């Protein structure tokens, strides 16, 4: 790819450009040097590879689900196999992809650099969390190979504890272990952000990506242990046949719901907050403006995290909770929309009168804005008691959470991967192909999930492998969309791998962005900085950058 593909690309002359002689990738050699590394950037790459692997397994199950739903009859698989499909799809996508995706890859790579630190506070614990992630993934695959799990990813009791003879305990172990991976990542981030900032890097000079990961880390640290104990209790109840959740033995299935959703609703914000951080960085960079209302955006992350802990009961509106508490939780649920809307409006104001360019990360970011807004607004429908009763357990729910989690998080993840790819690998990806992939993904996504809103509104329930014939047209559309979406996901996988060897040399700061990470060489040195940086400017200060580049042609490294 040539250097002329972008208006603001600042690529060095291709005939002479080479990657820096010394960087974190070639600092040591051999597989073992990766498997025992303490370098946060290498661990981020380990995560990137393994998370991509699990994403494609989870995606394969999504494909099988859509294939079965192509026709109204159950002609591809039997109902119990179908149950195993959507359970594996849910478990893998949520616990092994969406929760760790941005924090464990981009967060791991960038947070220390953005703070001016040499590494995360606890490199060994960071490596440990990758091993825990892999152990959790292994248990998930074991559950799959042994014959699968058919509880749904929510492990609803007493179904999961007494009535299903599948590999629930193996899957529960997987989630328990993967949960600790997430706890340790969050803990590491929080300590690093509190204790490892470079001189001058005050709280309100931190990039918003750091703020949003900070808020997500709070949720990981406080929420995940509650999921862990709920899962332990399920495993114990299943093993010993005792009744803490089984109503026939005096237990209460609602207790499981409370414990499970106390984590699993905030988990949505664990997934989405880091993505919002990516969007802030990308929108600021490609509109060449400071993020409008920086402080409001920063605090809205923390507000989303806090409110996130007070909304779990909306998952239980139709399960026999009291009307009074349902009302209160309905109100609290809608309150979460406020900080989310603050972010959306501030991004819109950032874009206003900015010098906008549509690089690939920006295309994905615009995709995020559209899809996440739809996902968020339909969330308000579902937060309203009356609507919820009509729409619950239908495809409307499925469409809603896919819009938030896939349309939001996955778009943000792809945006971030493209945005920081030059920094992580030192090379550019092919510009036109990547733009094509962004557009294909957006079209495929809408074609997949918009029909599902209608299906749900018309009353098609989720989790069934057969349906009345009148729903077929919309289901065919949805399946066709899933195929397009699949192409949209495969493309980046292919051309990013291609770019590792053949991509143009990116240079230190191809986007002319302001973050500390862009002031060091690409790919960075093992300890990131040759000397401790002294921060004397706000985040997104483009005047400072212009001043700096005027006076200082050579960069660190």
């Amino acid at each position, binding site marked *: 790819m040539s250097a002329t593909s972008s208006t603001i690309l600042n690529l060095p002359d291709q005939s002479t450009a080479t990657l820096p002689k010394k960087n974190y990738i070639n600092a040591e050699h051999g597989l073992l040097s990766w498997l025992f590394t303490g370098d946060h950037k290498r661990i981020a790459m380990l995560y990137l590879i393994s998370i991509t692997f699990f994403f494609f397994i989870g995606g394969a199950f999504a494909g099988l689900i859509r294939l079965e739903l192509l026709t109204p009859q159950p002609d591809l698989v039997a109902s119990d196999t179908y149950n195993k499909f959507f359970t594996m799809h849910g478990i893998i996508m949520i616990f092994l992809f969406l929760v760790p995706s941005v924090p464990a890859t981009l967060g791991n790579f960038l947070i220390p650099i953005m703070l001016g630190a040499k590494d995360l506070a*606890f490199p060994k614990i960071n490596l440990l969390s990758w091993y825990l992630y892999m152990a959790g993934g292994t248990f998930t695959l074991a559950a799959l190979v042994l014959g699968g799990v058919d509880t749904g990813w929510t492990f609803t009791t007493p179904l999961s504890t007494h009535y299903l003879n599948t590999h629930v305990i193996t899957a529960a172990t997987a989630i328990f272990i993967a949960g600790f991976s997430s706890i340790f990542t969050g*803990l590491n981030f929080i300590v690093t952000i509190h204790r*490892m900032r470079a001189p*001058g890097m005050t709280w*309100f000079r931190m990039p918003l990506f750091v703020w949003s990961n900070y808020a997500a880390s709070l949720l990981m640290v406080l929420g995940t242990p509650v999921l862990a104990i709920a899962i332990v209790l399920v495993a114990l109840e299943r093993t010993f*046949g005792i*009744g803490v959740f089984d109503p026939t*033995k005096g237990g209460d299935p609602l207790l499981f719901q409370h414990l499970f959703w106390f984590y699993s609703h905030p988990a949505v914000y664990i997934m989405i907050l880091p993505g919002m951080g990516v969007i802030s960085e990308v929108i600021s960079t490609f509109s060449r403006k400071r993020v409008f209302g920086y402080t409001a955006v920063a605090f809205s992350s923390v507000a989303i995290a806090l409110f996130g802990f007070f909304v779990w009961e909306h998952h239980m509106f139709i399960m026999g909770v009291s009307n009074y508490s349902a009302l209160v939780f309905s109100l609290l649920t809608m309150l979460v929309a406020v900080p989310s809307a603050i972010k959306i409006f501030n991004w819109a104001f950032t874009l206003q009168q900015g010098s906008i360019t549509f690089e690939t990360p920006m295309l994905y970011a615009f995709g995020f804005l559209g899809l996440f807004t739809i996902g968020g607004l339909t969330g308000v429908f579902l937060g309203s008691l009356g609507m919820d009763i009509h729409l619950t357990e239908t495809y409307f729910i499925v469409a809603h959470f896919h819009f938030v989690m896939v349309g939001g998080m996955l778009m943000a993840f792809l945006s971030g991967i493209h945005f920081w790819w030059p920094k992580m690998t030192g090379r550019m990806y092919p510009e036109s192909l990547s733009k094509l992939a962004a557009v294909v993904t957006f079209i495929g996504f809408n074609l997949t999930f918009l029909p599902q809103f209608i299906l749900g509104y018309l009353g098609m329930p989720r989790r069934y492998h057969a349906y009345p014939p009148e729903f077929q047209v919309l289901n065919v559309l949805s399946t066709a969309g899933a195929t397009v979406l699949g192409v949209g996901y495969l493309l980046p996988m292919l051309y990013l791998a291609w770019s590792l060897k053949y991509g143009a040399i990116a240079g230190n700061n191809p986007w002319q962005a302001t973050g500390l990470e862009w002031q060091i060489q690409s790919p960075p040195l093992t300890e990131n900085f040759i000397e401790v940086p*002294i921060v004397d400017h706000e985040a997104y200060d483009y005047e400072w950058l212009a001043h700096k580049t005027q006076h200082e042609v050579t960069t660190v490294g």
Partner: protein
Amino acid sequence: MDNVITHPHTHETAVAAEHHHQALPQHRHHFETEEQQREAASFGMWLFLLTEIMFFGGMFFAYLLYRNWYYDAFVAASNQLSIPLGAFNTVVLIGSGFFMALGVWAAEVKKKGLLVLFLVITTILGAIFLGVKADEYHEKWEKHHIPGAHFDVSEFVNPHAFGLKETPLAPDMAQRTQVFFFLYFAMTGMHALHMIIGIGILFWLTWRAHFGEFTSGYVAPIENFGLYWHFVDIVWLFLFPLLYLINRHPV
């Protein structure tokens, strides 16, 4: 929120500081100062304990809920626990916490012999606690009070036949004592697991302390383990009254 713009750390002083720190091999490369390393470790430990509180919190929540619902069953079942053994264990555990605190002090004043001694005493007291706990579990096993297939409610339905002066429970409510015992085993079991892990770490720390590693000014591991051990004490100080003491019938 410090607003430092300039910083005394120029490149030269950073390099000089690096040389100074070579005296302590425990200083990790990515920290600028030892103070920063110590603060980070301590802060990380506090955060970890916060996750532990959330972890135990789920079970405390379940306990409060079911205690409210199955009050009579919970009272009858808690009368099966031995207050003398529980009280003895409480004293043992607080004692171990006291010696752990002395250990932290010994590390700070760099007295190697004392540090090793206090760590050993802490370990022994922890082991005694676990021994008593195992004895209590064994007694529950013999009485068929372990929830599951072999659970036997006859002692609660007809206490007088067992020489107890308890009020008999209806068969339905007597079955609910299983919920109590389930929570008893889950909570004390999880607490015991934390102690087993703690004793494992104590062995490791004692070994390293024996070679003087923590009496050279590098006290963070001892301090942080002290925090962990005190957390385990404190959880027990909630478990003991909740499970053994509150609202027992005077018979």
